[in-house]
């Protein structure tokens, strides 16, 4: 089973890198781009027996290491 984990900055947390991307897109002529936020996608394989166990395990991974919940939100999906 594969987990796709998406980590993004919380609303209200300034994202200077997103802002720089937004400015660069504008400079390339892409008009009307706003609210650019950048984050991380983490992909991993799990040996968990079932979906419930996998969800609980990924949840613990996000809480303990993958996301810093002071500044980041996370969400994930299980595939395969």
């Amino acid at each position, binding site marked *: 089973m594969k987990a796709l984990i998406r980590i993004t900055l919380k609303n209200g947390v300034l994202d200077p*890198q997103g802002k*720089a991307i937004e400015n660069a897109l504008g400079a390339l002529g892409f008009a009307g781009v706003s609210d650019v936020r950048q984050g991380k996608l983490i992909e991993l394989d799990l040996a968990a027996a079932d979906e419930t166990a996998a969800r609980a395990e990924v949840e613990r991974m996000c809480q303990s290491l993958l996301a810093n919940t*002071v*500044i980041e939100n996370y969400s994930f999906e299980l595939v395969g």
Partner: protein
Amino acid sequence: MIRASVIVFPGSNCDRDVKVATEAVGAKVNMVWHGESEVPASDFLILPGGFSYGDYLRCGAMAAHSPIMRDVIAKAKTGTPIIGICNGFQVLLETGLLPGALMRNASLLFVCRDVHVRCDSHETYFTGCYRGGEVLRIPIAHHDGNYFADQETLDRLEGENLVAFRYCDADGELTEADNPNGSQRNIAGITNPTGRILGLMPHPERLFEKPLGGTDGRRIFESALVAAIDAAA
């Protein structure tokens, strides 16, 4: 003899500098590798600057989970004083021993220069030799020093006098122009409620004796030595 331990992670690069600065004030220093499971008996612990684990995932995130940190956290929770400098501050935040997070500098640039900071909490283990409100000139060198915490946490830090250092101008005024990284409320360093855990972005070990160009950082180490001697008396 006062004993300090410097925790060395793969990618630490200020570990030997901070050892020299700590020895200069008269302490004996152990270097403790991150793979060890126990810190030797120490009066205080130091998490040095650098780029532990190559800053993978987030600055300090991997180091916060390295084997030695279990013992460091246990010792910190039972009152062993601990200072985290630059990357060490990032590690302290990732362990949750101090609140908040350090994000990419608002300018997106790596900033390496001397700045002024004001000592706003001088009754802690590591700042006892400074005067309240004293302005220091001290080097910073970081890419991720933009202090962030929610408003409630910031209010609590200020209300309980836990902001140890703030970026300021040469006269101690807090201005936006003198905030090198976008930190909220110009925060450069914070302490815990007991004053025994300090995290700060500036590098006191880089300005602790005259040949380095100044001595404003030296009293961090002197403060710890004085506090350790007092505790042992």
